């Protein structure tokens, strides 16, 4: 279980006069949903492309499934949904799926029943012999999604997974991703929308300007970053509240006004100690709640407003030499 599906070690990628990814390391364990988070232009797509060996890193290494070999050699075990979606507009739906499966090393005859299965499951059976450009955008998204999972990859990589999806497809994608994880598959996806990541991710890695800011399980990150907060409502008597809130060993920051208080705990602070002290001093409480900060708040705290606007990107990554 401890074996990493993706182990990225200090990879760097420079494009004409601009460092897209700078000494980034990350580890994706087996069987998790891993979110690569960052503002636009943080280097998420470049990182993903290096993992897949579409680009070679300038320095550093990428190791997949704990084995040697590049993304191309392992491509049969990887499903990839790039940020820019696209299919052959003039090909028939089923032919596109079979062709893309063939490129993943699946025999056409073996791929056929599976493709039909998936098309039926996503309600596209009637469209299998139609040309791709006769389909609506939402249907094309479904077809493309089928193409990334048709060869039953062990690792599913999705760049800006949910961008451009309508709510129905978004739900289909989320359900399928959760189902794949239940079957022991690993999912790595990038997004800049924190609410989505918070809902589905087990692990996250937050990057900005090509550098890693933090990574770990979502629970760990919430515990160690953005602080722990306590929300208190008094029911009349406040007891010795002001003295207790002023104890810097316990409380880093207090925002108390009348019957309400929000505390940010100090590093060594213990909410239970505070609760006991308040009750002992005679305060009456109607609410005492340990609150988790949202991923969004952590993200903004970490990234800061200036990193949300990336360094001047040479127009759309010109010259990826």
């Amino acid at each position, binding site marked *: 279980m401890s074996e990493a599906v993706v182990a990225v070690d200090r990879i760097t990628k420079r494009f004409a006069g601009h460092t897209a990814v700078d000494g980034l390391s990350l580890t994706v364990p087996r069987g998790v949903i891993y979110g690569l988070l960052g503002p636009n232009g943080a280097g998420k797509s470049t990182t993903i492309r290096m993992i*897949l060996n579409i680009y070679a890193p300038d320095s550093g290494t990428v190791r997949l499934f704990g084995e040697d070999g590049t993304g*191309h050699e392992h491509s049969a075990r990887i499903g990839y949904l*790039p940020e820019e979606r*696209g299919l*052959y507009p*003039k090909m028939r739906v089923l032919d596109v799926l079979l062709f*893309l499966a063939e490129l993943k090393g699946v025999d056409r005859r073996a791929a056929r029943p599976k493709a039909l299965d998936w098309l039926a499951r996503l309600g596209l059976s009637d469209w299998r012999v139609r040309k791709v450009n006769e389909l609506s955008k939402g249907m094309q998204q479904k077809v493309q999604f089928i*193409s990334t999972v048709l060869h039953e990859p062990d690792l599913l990589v999705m760049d800006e997974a949910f961008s451009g999806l309508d709510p129905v497809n978004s739900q289909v994608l989320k359900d399928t991703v959760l189902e794949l994880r239940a079957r022991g598959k690993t999912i790595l996806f990038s997004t800049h929308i924190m609410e989505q990541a918070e809902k589905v991710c087990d692990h996250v890695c937050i990057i900005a300007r090509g550098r890693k800011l933090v990574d770990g399980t979502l629970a760990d990150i919430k515990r160690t970053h953005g602080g722990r907060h306590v929300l208190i409502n008094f029911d009349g008597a406040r007891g010795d509240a002001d003295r207790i809130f002023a104890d810097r060993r316990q409380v880093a920051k207090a925002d108390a006004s009348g019957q309400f208080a929000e505390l940010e705990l100090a590093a060594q602070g213990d909410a239970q100690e505070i609760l006991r002290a308040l009750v002992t001093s005679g305060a009456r409480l109607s609410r005492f709640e340990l609150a988790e900060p949202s991923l969004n708040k952590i993200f903004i705290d970490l990234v800061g407003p200036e990193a949300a606007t990336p360094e001047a990107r040479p127009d759309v990554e010109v*010259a990826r030499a």
Partner: protein
Amino acid sequence: MRKILAVIRREFVERVRQRWFWVMVLLGPLFFGAIFILPTLLTGKGGVRHIAVVDGTTSTFGARLTERLDRESLFVAVRVPSGAHTVDSLMVAVDRKQIDGFLILTDAAVDSGKATYRASNVSSFVTIGTLERVIGEMVNASRLEREGVNPSLVTRARIRVDLDSKKVSGGKATGESAAQSFSLAYFMGIILYMAILIYGINVMSSVLEEKTTKIVEVLVSSLRPFQLMLGKVIGVGAVSIFQFLIWGVSARFLISQRRHLLGEQGIGEASQVFQVPHVTGATAAVFIAYFLGGFLLYSSMFAAVGAMSSNEQEARQAQQPVTMLLVLSFISMFAMLNDPGSTLSVTLSLIPLSSPIAMPVRWAAGNLPFQEVALSLGILFLSIVGVTWIAARIYRVGILMTGKRPSLKELVRWVRAA
């Protein structure tokens, strides 16, 4: 390897399924038919010319010439005696298109070979040529007769020489006439040029399609860019060979039925130039070898062009240098036909950019030493390896690039860095 096969298969099947392919298949033979028939139509038939001969001679020369011209299928000639207002009234007749033109004859025609022709259209080579020939013959005969030579002797002395030319190959006459060699060389040149151009551009648009639809990113995550490019080039090449098979059979059929298609009349002079070519196995092999060589050379360049452009417009511009190279080689074909043995011809058939058209044309036009073909093929092969190597590097970087088209300097960097 299986992945390359999948790419080849897709290129082939999708292309052959397209209506465009079958339109080309149908238009191809029509096009070749037109190449056969058009010169005949254009030069052989301009319609019959109605002319008047204004006879100002004091001998019977005018009458005899009129009769002689009238016998030519091209002319309907009427003799008009020379009068004070004859020329003026004939001018009006030409203006009103009652006649096509008129010839003014005086005694000077026989004495100094001078005559005047006035017509609404004097640009037809055939009309003028025939007039000059007939008048020349008659003038010669008249002069000889005047010197006391027997007219029947003159007729016999005028028997035309028919030069029976046969190409010599391997010390034997091949049964292939100069005219046949010429027409074969001519056709091979045209077909090579058209095919390399059309299918090269096919490769380019295929690359561009994958780029503009963004599917290329999924593809290059599954296979290497070089595999993709190779599969594409081979796939399109297979389509072209398939089309050649269809065309070849049709062309054969067309040639065998030519007499029916043209009718007896049209066969005249044009069939002297365009005779049924005799295609030997060696010639076919040379043709196929150079077609494949030329196609590989040019289509990898076209693939690189497609990869470095982000839309049709850009590609159209960027392809121009490549197309120009091809057009130049095509034009050089006429130098080949003129003198297949000249230094220029030999040079052009060795330079890899022009040899795919030049060498087969030279081969068809005249016998060539085997070593020269081998040397030319060797150079071509090495160039394909080199050009493909460079093109693949441009392709590899280009297919994932968006934004403005790279400058020449950037291209050089791509080739170095990739």
